[in-house]
């Protein structure tokens, strides 16, 4: 079953650290359990987005590459 997102962050064209910085801002606007879809072209995001998700208690549900664009689905974790 495909994942449905609650919000999309278009970080295409941005380089480190902006995809993660913007993802941090966007996910803060969601409720726990809601899903943020992130689009990025920065190759470093393949390492950065999973690390950021883990460190912030959010869950990377799935990611894949689609025509040179990295697509991530991150579910907001519970408040600590």
């Amino acid at each position, binding site marked *: 079953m495909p994942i449905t997102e609650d919000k999309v962050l278009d970080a295409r*064209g941005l*380089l*480190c650290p*902006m995809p*993660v*910085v913007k993802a*941090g801002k966007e996910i803060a606007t969601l409720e726990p359990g809601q899903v943020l879809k992130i689009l990025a072209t920065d190759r470093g995001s393949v390492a950065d987005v999973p690390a*950021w998700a883990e460190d*912030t208690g959010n869950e990377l549900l799935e990611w894949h590459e689609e025509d040179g664009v990295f697509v991530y689905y991150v579910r907001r974790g519970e408040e600590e």
Partner: protein
Amino acid sequence: MSETGTIETVGLTEEAVRRIVREELERAQTRDPATRKATIIASKGTLDFAYPPLILATTAAATGMETHVFFTFYGLNIVHRDFESKLKVSPVGNPAMPTPVPMPNLVTVIPGMGPLATVMMKSKFDRKHVATIAELLATARELGVRLVACQMTMEVFGYEPDDLIEGVELGGAAAFLSEARRAHLTLFI
């Protein structure tokens, strides 16, 4: 050790004890506030060295860390009102810097080469959509990064608080260390 306290008598296997210890350590790690704090010293005042402290500080703040950056010596350039003109790169004595055509390092001292190198680096960063120093500073302040200028170096350089961008605090070595000792992550750049 008392006879009733051994792991055999309470029915725990060594494996179970190891698992409990591991879980407790992990729990302690997540509770440790020092894992959520970053302190960075920015000591250099060139354009290339302005990036690492700001990139790491904004990223640390974006991952929920309480982040402090202490600007000292030439690092003060980064938070000076005139940071746009103060932050430069120089090809002199920097054989790592790429040049459009191969040239001996001696040539790099010709007047105009420094400004040229700075313009080239800025335009290259711009073409690649790297955030500007102004954007990173704005992001840092927005994310609540504490920007602290070294009072001693301010005196030496003759800077007044008004010479710095808004939102910069003043502090010294003791203030920095007081934060750094509570942070697992401390960097000198």
